[in-house]
């Protein structure tokens, strides 16, 4: 059932995680398309869990944030607090076109800006919504498995 693990993607130069990656997911203004794809990335078919990645409840437990959506005004504060709650070293993963570059909501009312305006992005996962396989590949580039 599970897709065979393709070739190991190039490891990210940002940090060495040696097979373990915990992410806190933050939705700062997404249409929930990315959420569905993230869920299926951890489902039986793509099974990102087998490469050592996991979503966790607390940013204290996490190695980084997995951000979806454009940064709306109401979520800008919570996003900053979440980033502050991460223990170093940490990464910021932008998931989906909205997070990467603003997407179709870029200049909409109530939007503060793109994720890149708030915090430097380490890994970008393009797509609207991104394919589960590319989400999994991004995780693998961080875990190095």
């Amino acid at each position, binding site marked *: 059932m599970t897709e065979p693990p393709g070739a190991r993607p190039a490891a990210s130069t940002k940090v060495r995680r040696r097979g373990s990656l915990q992410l806190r997911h933050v939705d700062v203004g997404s249409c929930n398309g990315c959420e569905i794809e993230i869920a299926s990335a951890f489902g039986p078919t793509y099974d990102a869990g087998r490469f050592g990645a996991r979503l966790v409840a607390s940013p*204290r437990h996490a190695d980084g944030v997995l951000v979806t959506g454009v940064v709306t005004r109401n979520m800008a504060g*919570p996003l900053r*607090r979440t980033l*502050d*709650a991460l223990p170093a070293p940490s990464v910021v993963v932008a998931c989906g076109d909205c997070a990467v570059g603003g997407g179709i909501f870029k200049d909409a009312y109530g939007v503060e800006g793109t994720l890149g305006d708030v915090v430097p992005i380490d890994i970008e996962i393009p797509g609207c919504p991104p394919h589960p396989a590319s989400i999994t590949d991004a995780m693998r580039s961080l875990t190095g498995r």
Partner: protein
Amino acid sequence: MSLLLVALGLCAIASLLGALLPAPARVTSSSVLVLAASCCAAASSVSALRGAHVTSVHSTALLPLTGMTMTLDPLGAVFVAITAMVAAAVSIYNLGYVTGALGSRSASCLLPVFVLSLLAVPVAASVATLMFFWELMAMSSMLLIAVEHRHRAEARDATLWYGTMTQLGAGSILLGLLVLTIHGGGQSFASIAAHAGALPRVARSTAFLLVLLGFASKAGAVPLHAWLPKAHPEAPTPVSALMSGAMVATGVYGILRVGGDLLGGGTLWWWVAVAAIGVVSALFGALHATASSDLKGLLAYSTIDVVGLVLVGVGAAGALSVTGRRGAAELTMVAALLLLVAHAAFKGALFLGAGAVDRAAGTRDLNLLGGLARRLPVTSGLFALATLTIVAVPTLAGFSGEWLLLQGLLHGFGGTSTPTLITLLIGVVALALSGGLTAVAFVKAFGIGFLGQARSAGASRAVEVPRAMQLATGLLCVPCVLLGVAPGLIVPWLSRAANEGLHLRARRPVAEGTSLVLSRFQGAFEPLLVLAALAAALAAIWIVTSLAARRGRRRVAAWGCGREAQTPRMQYTATSFGEPLQRVFVDVLRPDVDLEVTHETESKYYEQALAYENRVEDAVERSVYRPVIAGFRRYGDAVRGLQNGSIHRYLAFGFIALLVVLVVLA
């Protein structure tokens, strides 16, 4: 013995000075004298426990008609030592604590009297002497509870409850002892003990039941406990500590002295009854402690819990001794005494700590406390240590007592009758359950009261209390650690007392050395080694972690799921902490829960205000005491109808009564 008399004299002088001297001097002088008296009493009890032969004093001058007889034997000495320990700490505490009402003339006069009576009750060796000091104890403690009656209505209510119940109890004890005296050919304990064997069965059992009623009430055993959760919290802190640590113990002493010593063991069902009361008390007290949100109220209920366990031990020991299992009986008895001594230490420390919190934050309502650990570091540290002791963390005193008790119950299982077996079994169950519930109650007490953020302005402005109060609390923490690490130091003494109390005549103590290696059974606990192992493990983990950790620490805001503000009101309160357990035991606790929702006028889907109230009342009080009191009220109202103030009517009543008597006699 002579040292003890000196101690009693010092207390008397302290009381006089407290009554006569002006305000600042009377507190200092009476406190110092009580401290000296406690030291003397401690020394005399130690010498009695180490085996100096039993001495007796008789004086006809002090008490008219009957004279006063006092004997210091090992059993009594244990209880003298308990009082001395708590009284010493309390007198130091007073130096820092006393302001306002407690500095009053009556308070500084009465506190030494209370200590004096507590020291004298265990050495009283005749019915008259015992009753004299018992009443003195009751009266002085009652008046001490009432000291703050001007400021708080609850104190008045508590005094009334305590006074009524303690007098009924004293009456019951007196009746029971009178039964013994009538049959015993004299009112001295020696003659009662000598004649006890010849007593008719019914008389013995009646006497024991009457005495048990009175002493169990003093010990705070359910269902005669109703005064305790009212009186202990309302009394000034030093008095609460003395009442909970020492006075409650005199109830246990009375049961032992009369049932075990004077009546020579008695019959099986007595002890099964004692153990049954103990089981009910242990579970009831522990459960209510988890539901209480008043810091001192929680401690009061936990007193009922621990004394319940002690009574389980006493009852099991009595039952085992009656069925001829002396080794196990002695072991269980020693466990009960050790638990009682440990209780005096940790509960004393907890009450003194709670008093310090009350002083520093201006409230003892856990729902208004919090954040004290950083504001009152010393008090919090000592309170934490006492908390760990009562939770029975291994290598602390509470654990030593509970471990011995479990061993006693377990090794009593072999070859006994069915009632004893069931008693022991239920004792084990009670011990286990109360252990778990106590942990919940005290995690709540310390975690909600001292950790987190301050929940009220008072708590956020708290400042550390005077040194004397810290020192006193610390003093009581010493036995908490010492009896945990080296319980063997006092086990031989307690063995003596247990033998004395139950006439067991065992030749060697239950355990040898400073640790607990049982001499007659297969079982051992060496706290020093376990403590060393714990220390080694802690050190190893610390070293490994600091070597492996590659980054430092950073202080950040608490993680509140990204919310704007993290206010103290978002924390769990004491009520919410205990709520899950309250749901589990809803049939026992029967809480009153009120939820009042005020809706917006525009739509009922929006709420304007929510009022939630959750009150746990004492179920026994509600279902037993209230109806009785209501009955008395109705009777009182009916009687009042007869009285209209007319002197003629009263004379007419008298006349009619006289006529009735004459007719009946004719």
